[in-house]
């Protein structure tokens, strides 16, 4: 008996399926939210300078808020793919071998360089890390970041990636539903907050999502 439904969905029966429509809607909400918390600071700073030029230092603080808050959200999004947990250096080569067998030649090479496994899907192109994944939706204009992990903390890093990759391949929407959505926004915002060695993976995902 086999199926293409993720068994972990039984643990989150209250969640709506994370499908294309859900992602589009959430992307718009995040976009509006970003404007809602940054534009008032910009306006307030502008008005302060207009009314009283001596208020420039306070206005600069307001501008800084308008810049810092979206950056913090983007940092949170990019953090899902950061390396986390024990490195298990003794067992990692074995795990890396198995993960390599699951990936194609180019994806394997990219994963070894960046730590992220590129996986094309129906919703877009995924980058799967040790404890999270980034989905670059078709067209490459928006990235969704998800926090999701294997429940065994003793796994070597590549096995953690393999867990997520296998679950994603079984049921893409189910995978996105089980995962916690933590950020949506332009890929360049995520890229700036990603560790430098991981950025080529995001570039590859954007290129794949544009095709």
């Amino acid at each position, binding site marked *: *008996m086999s199926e293409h439904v993720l068994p972990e969905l039984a643990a989150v029966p209250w969640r709506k399926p994370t499908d294309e429509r859900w992602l589009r809607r959430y992307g718009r909400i995040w976009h509006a939210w970003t404007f809602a918390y940054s534009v008032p600071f910009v306006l307030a700073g502008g008005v302060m300078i207009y009314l009283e030029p001596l208020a420039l230092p306070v206005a600069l603080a307001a501008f800084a808020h308008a810049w810092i808050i979206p950056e913090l959200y983007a940092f949170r999004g990019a953090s899902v793919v950061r390396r986390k947990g024990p490195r298990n250096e003794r067992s990692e080569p074995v795990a890396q071998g198995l993960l390599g067998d699951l990936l194609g030649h180019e994806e394997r090479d990219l994963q070894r360089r960046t730590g992220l496994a590129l996986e*094309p899907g129906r919703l877009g192109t995924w980058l799967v890390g040790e404890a999270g994944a980034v989905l670059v939706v078709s067209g490459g204009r928006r990235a969704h970041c998800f926090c999701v992990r294997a429940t065994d903390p003793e796994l070597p890093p590549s096995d953690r990636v393999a867990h997520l990759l296998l679950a994603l391949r079984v049921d893409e929407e189910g995978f996105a539903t089980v995962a916690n959505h933590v950020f949506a926004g332009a890929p360049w915002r995520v890229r700036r907050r990603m560790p430098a060695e991981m950025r080529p993976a995001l570039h590859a995902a954007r290129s794949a999502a544009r095709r």
Partner: protein
Amino acid sequence: MARLIRLDGSGHTTLAEWTAADDAAFEAAVDEFREQQGLGYIGTVPEGPGKATHVRELPREADLVIMRRPIAGG
């Protein structure tokens, strides 16, 4: 030769091997598969690029069956 493996702290562990013609080896693999399910592992069959299937019973014809832990939102 088909393999049943478990992703664990050692990287992975081969739990059983069988061939389509060897009933005894397959039965031993089935027992092992069920035992792992009892421990909370989930059976997954990789089916080439981009595809995998969740299995509740050990498929005799599969080349590789991977037992993995459940995933959860972090």
